[in-house]
């Protein structure tokens, strides 16, 4: 009796100790998360109610910063640009990422080479790629030379071949750039989920006489649902936070004609060019509400099935 009791007791303490060690391990990241993410969020909400300058708060404004944001035409343009960008770039990124993943998954010889090659733009610095892209898309750049080679005269377009310098094409050009650079990351997410689909399903489909097209739409695509959710969420958050490419290609003014003014660029300008930190914090809170709402909507749309990628 006594022995069993002691055994139970030691098992209990062992468990408790294990749990304690577990909590110990998550305590540090959790503390950092609480301070620098959650804490910073509440602190920004507090700052956003003040006129807050370089040396700190000077006047309590209540919600006047928010009222000012909603009235500012430039912020309306920034919201419009960010949402347009997101609506166009996310489906393109997902489509390219999925296509690359399916193709790479089918290849057996040189598979890791292609995986690395497609992923490469995602690991290169976005600043460096954007600078290269500016040269490629310049009026006398590589892209227009290629157009000329296939018999198209870019000077005949109404933007005169000035892709990043004309307000009609600047944002779309950045969409092209980002669809290319980020689709490698999306491919990796899809690849992880593709390998998690059991091969029996495909064998059964083949036995039933399903061709590759039917197999893809009836089996692969629906079974990738958790990956769709993950990829869509990550892309939407990334797209709504687009800053670096717009800043490098269009400068802090979002040139030309505000076509590259995004929400985060607007926030940056408020903080570091106008030194209105209270106002910038209010912009940040508005951005947070938009992203949070978008994520909740996606959760509703794509369900909440667990991510089952490579573990």
């Amino acid at each position, binding site marked *: 009796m006594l022995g069993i009791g002691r055994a139970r007791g030691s098992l209990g303490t062992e468990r408790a100790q294990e749990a304690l060690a577990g909590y110990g391990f998550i305590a540090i990241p959790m503390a950092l998360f609480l301070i620098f993410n959650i804490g910073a969020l509440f602190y920004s909400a507090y700052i956003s109610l003040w006129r807050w300058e370089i040396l700190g708060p000077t006047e309590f404004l209540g919600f006047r910063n928010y009222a000012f944001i909603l009235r500012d035409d430039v912020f309306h343009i920034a919201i419009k640009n960010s949402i347009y960008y997101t609506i166009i770039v996310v489906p393109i990124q997902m489509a390219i990422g999925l296509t690359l993943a399916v193709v790479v998954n089918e290849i057996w010889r040189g598979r890791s080479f292609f995986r690395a090659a497609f992923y490469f733009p995602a690991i290169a610095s976005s600043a460096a790629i954007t600078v290269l892209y500016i040269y490629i898309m310049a009026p006398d750049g590589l892209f227009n030379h290629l157009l000329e080679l296939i018999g198209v005269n870019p000077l005949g377009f109404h933007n005169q071949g000035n892709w990043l310098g004309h307000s009609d094409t600047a944002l779309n050009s950045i969409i092209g750039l980002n669809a290319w650079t980020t689709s490698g990351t999306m491919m990796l997410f899809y690849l992880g989920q593709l390998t998690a689909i059991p091969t029996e399903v495909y064998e059964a489909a083949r036995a039933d006489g399903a061709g590759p097209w039917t197999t893809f739409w009836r089996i692969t695509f629906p079974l990738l649902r958790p990956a769709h959710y993950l990829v869509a969420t990550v892309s939407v958050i990334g797209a709504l936070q687009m800053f670096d490419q717009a800043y490098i290609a269009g400068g802090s003014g979002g040139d030309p004609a505000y076509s590259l003014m995004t929400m985060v660029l607007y926030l940056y300008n408020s903080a570091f060019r*106008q030194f209105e930190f209270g106002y910038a914090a209010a912009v940040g809170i508005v951005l947070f509400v938009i992203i949070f709402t978008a994520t909740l909507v996606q959760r509703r749309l794509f369900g909440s099935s667990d991510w089952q990628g490579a573990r």
Partner: protein
Amino acid sequence: MRRWLLLLAATALAAQACGGGGGGGTTFNADSVSGTVVLSGWQASPEEGAALNAALAGFKAKYPKITVDYQPIAGDYPTAMVAKFSAHQPPDVFYVDSGVAPDWIKQGVLQSLDDWSSSRNFDTSQFYSGYLNAFKGSDGKTYGYPKDGNTLAMAYNPDMLTAAGVQPPTTYDEMTTVGAALKSKGMVAYSMSTTLDRILAFIYGDGGNLLSSDKKSDAIDSKFKDAVSFYLNLFKMGYAKSPSQLGVDWNGKALGEKKAAIIFEGGWLDSYMKGTFPSVPYKWVAMPKGASGQATLGFTVSYSIGKDSPHKDAAWLLLTYLTGPDGMKIWTQGGVANPSRKDVPAPAGKDVLVNSAAFAHPWSFIPGFSKVSDAFNNAFEAAVEGKGTVDDVVSKTKSALDQQLNQP
């Protein structure tokens, strides 16, 4: 104890007030100041670093008891400085760009210098007013002295003008005829920026203005509009193209690659042309004259002292040495910068840019001005693309200015 100290301080102030006026500087003795001063700025080139070191060596010879700790800041200078200001640990002496000066003055992070310049006998009358006024706050006090200055002038490729059989334009009207002459030979006359920091020079030349003397937007009038129309028309007629339309990142490159014959830039063009296009010929002349005479923009950077600087006496000596005639002569003589003082001679080949300071307006306006210039630039770009009119440019600039003046 505290009360005693207060009383002591009050007595000292009263004594100073009584003794003020005659001679001044009752307690300040430059030779007895010692310690270390931290000096910060950005560094554009190795030549600039060498010129600054030479000037600092001159300071060391004059004030051997003061050590200068030079800490240049790499990267985004305003952001780095904002972090230092908010930590109440700014460098003692540092650069302030005329474009951000109104913001930093309003934020109360800079030390006003007027009391010292009168009590310690520093003569500021030799600074070109177009540069010095850039560092005056709305309270009329001065928060920095210009370490050097640059103006916009006209740089042109003489070979291209000769090929078209024309002389460099001296008035805005001639700019149109020169533009037509080059266009008829298949050349682009002007590479011109679509931004306020160039166009404003032409607005001033036509007698227009951006801000009234009491800092209101009602100075934007028909003359402002006419000048913007004139500038826009050069684009519409195909006489001018923007750097982005020419496939370059700035006007200097358009001149270097001979994509345009004439540009309007400042002294920074010289080192660029020397380094990148040494064989392309170009010459400087002053800005063409508008309806109300000659005008240009003055871009300048000051040396200022932090409000929270712990070593203000030593900082004052460094500031006044570097912006005084001796220090500025050493700093500018190699040609890395142009003097902002009339009593310092122009370096070789810089006469046009230095003399233009006499009719330069400072590039320094109101706090939060970047939003106004963004509004102008974006409206003007839209007009160049045919998506807006000159009236749009005027109304959007005016409303951005009003918005900034009435910010909560």
